[in-house]
């Protein structure tokens, strides 16, 4: 086998240009696959991070009854004794850093001329700021404060639509627990611009005290939202969230705890489709590379027919002839795959360390409501590199077998006569 390696390696080096061209095609294919995977994971990461940071949190605690009726945003079926539940959640898992109550309700907001429907959220300003990054998204004014009742924070798109600024007043009306409609006047204390389009377009936040007065509730919590320490990768984030939800669920009998995996299941299903798409791309590129490998080895076979005849005349078995040319293909494949992994790693490095401004790439195109803004960072994924390398080798192996078999089938006398 050692001699086969030697002959194969030297033949691969003998036709450098041929080897380099095939290797480069493979490298580009595998490199693109690795980079694309990194960017897609980065997109998923930024999307899920934004969901976690602005709307969903790592896990949500709700009653099963509320979940069954959540489309109507009822003021019933809230989490019983939210304070006790929050203490139980904090004690359930060391990774949990904060818990906050929220009450979601549908309201109408008016600037005294026009009125628009909004999804309003009652929050504990201090606790909510520990779970979500909304205070960081305030572009004018300030985040809510329990010390300043009568203020609301609204999304930037809504502010624009209503033509209001910080300091202006709005009338918010909503159905109460008494099944009548109540309205009150609130000052716009802050405007937020978040990566979540629907918050920008129809989000309204008010402090619990104001919401209780408006709705006739008493600390009603339609949900408890949970924050956890940031995990190093997307998969780790999802795993952590599932673990946290399981532990919190065990600590809260009768309540339903959904992790971000469940909360973002539609997006994650789309992610799986994207992943399939990226595999399709690598398949196409590697098919092109496979044609290159078949061609390279076929040319090698054709150029060395008499050499094959000599080896066979001296007793080399057809099996070893097949091995020889398969090895050559594998060597080209290994060089191409290794180059691909290095190229992919280099591109990964750029996306992981430097990142790419999404705005600069897609401008102001609406991404169908997806929370995809900010700087996109790639993620290192050694498994993808291993898959890319292995896939390259498999493609090279399969591609090299075709001409290698042909070489092994040559009649010795025909091969020796070949000019």
């Amino acid at each position: 086998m050692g001699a086969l390696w030697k002959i194969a390696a030297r033949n691969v080096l003998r036709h450098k240009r041929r080897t380099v061209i095939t290797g480069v095609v493979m490298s580009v294919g595998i490199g693109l696959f690795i980079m694309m995977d990194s960017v897609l994971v980065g997109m998923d990461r930024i999307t899920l991070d934004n969901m976690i940071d602005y709307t969903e949190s790592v896990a949500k605690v709700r009653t099963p009854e509320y979940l069954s009726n959540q489309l109507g945003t009822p003021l019933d079926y809230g989490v019983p004794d939210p304070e006790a539940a929050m203490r139980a959640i904090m004690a359930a898992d060391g990774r949990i850093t904060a818990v906050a109550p929220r009450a979601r309700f549908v309201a109408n907001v008016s600037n005294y001329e026009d009125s628009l429907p909004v999804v309003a959220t009652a929050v504990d300003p201090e606790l909510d700021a520990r779970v979500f990054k909304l205070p960081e998204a305030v572009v004018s004014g300030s985040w809510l404060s329990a010390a300043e009742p009568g203020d609301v924070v609204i999304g930037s798109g809504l502010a624009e639509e209503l033509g209001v600024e910080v300091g202006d007043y709005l009338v918010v009306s909503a159905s109460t627990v008494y099944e009548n409609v109540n309205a009150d006047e609130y000052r716009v204390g802050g405007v937020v611009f978040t990566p979540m389009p629907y918050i920008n377009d129809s989000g309204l936040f008010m402090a619990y005290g104001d919401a209780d007065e408006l709705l006739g509730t008493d600390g009603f919590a339609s949900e408890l939202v949970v924050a956890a320490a940031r995990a190093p990768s997307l998969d780790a984030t999802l795993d952590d969230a599932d673990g946290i939800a399981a532990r919190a669920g065990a600590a809260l009998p009768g309540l339903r705890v959904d992790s971000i995996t469940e909360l973002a299941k539609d997006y994650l299903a789309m992610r799986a489709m994207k992943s399939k798409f990226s595999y399709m791309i690598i398949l196409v590129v590697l098919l092109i590379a496979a044609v290159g490998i078949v061609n390279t080895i076929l040319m090698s076979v054709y150029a060395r027919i008499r050499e094959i005849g000599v080896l066979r005349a001296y007793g080399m078995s057809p099996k070893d002839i097949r091995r020889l040319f398969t090895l050559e293909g594998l060597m080209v494949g290994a060089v191409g795959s290794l180059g691909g992994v290095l190229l992919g790693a280099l591109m990964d490095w750029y996306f992981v360390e430097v990142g790419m401004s999404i705005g600069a790439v897609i401008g102001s195109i609406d991404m169908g409501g997806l929370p995809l803004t900010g700087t996109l960072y790639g993620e290192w994924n050694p498994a993808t590199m291993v898959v890319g390398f292995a896939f390259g080798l498999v493609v090279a192996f399969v591609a090299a077998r075709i001409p290698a078999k042909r070489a092994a089938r040559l009649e010795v006398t025909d091969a020796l006569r070949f000019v």
Partner: protein
Amino acid sequence: MNVLELKDLTKIYSKGDNEVRALDGVSMDVEPGEFLAVVGPSGSGKTTLLNIIGCLDKPSSGRVVYEGADLGSATQQQLSDYRKDRISFIFQSYNLIPVLTVVENVELPLVIEKRRDKAAVRAKALEMLAAVGLEGKANRFPRELSGGQEQRVAIARALVKDPSVVLADEPTANLDSRTAEEIVDLMKSINATRGATFVFSTHDKLVMQHARRVVTIRDGRLVADERS
């Protein structure tokens, strides 16, 4: 015992409806240590005969007996194994492996035999290179050698495994007359010192003169068998 016995060999090639009788009832015996030339015009069947003797091809009918073993019913694999163990070849175009050095080319038959002792293989190859006068060229590549030197390497390669029979198809056809004579002298001297049986085909009258036995083939028939 004869090293080789050919009994009534016939080889027929079919081309469409036409049959070409490349060999037609050739019988002969070869004794160990012979230095035998097969001569005849182009298309007379010399190469076909050498291919059959070399177990590269099978006769349409007749028997090939090597050292008492009848290879008539041997499978391709058995023929390949026999070739590996007992027969060596020298080709008209030398056919050295261009990516291997001179010494690696000479080692090749032993490597194909899967001999494990690398040091012994190297020593044997160097010994053969010395025998053909190329001890200083061991690490050169074939492209760095002249035609005569390449054929010397091919001879060293053929002899490295101590074969029973060395077959050479027109070994001097690509060489100038002086080099051709040197190569035949070398083959003859190795035949004398090592006792290897040489069977070679040639057109060259000068080369023929060196043979101790000349077998003439014409139209697939053995028409003369002269010993000097």
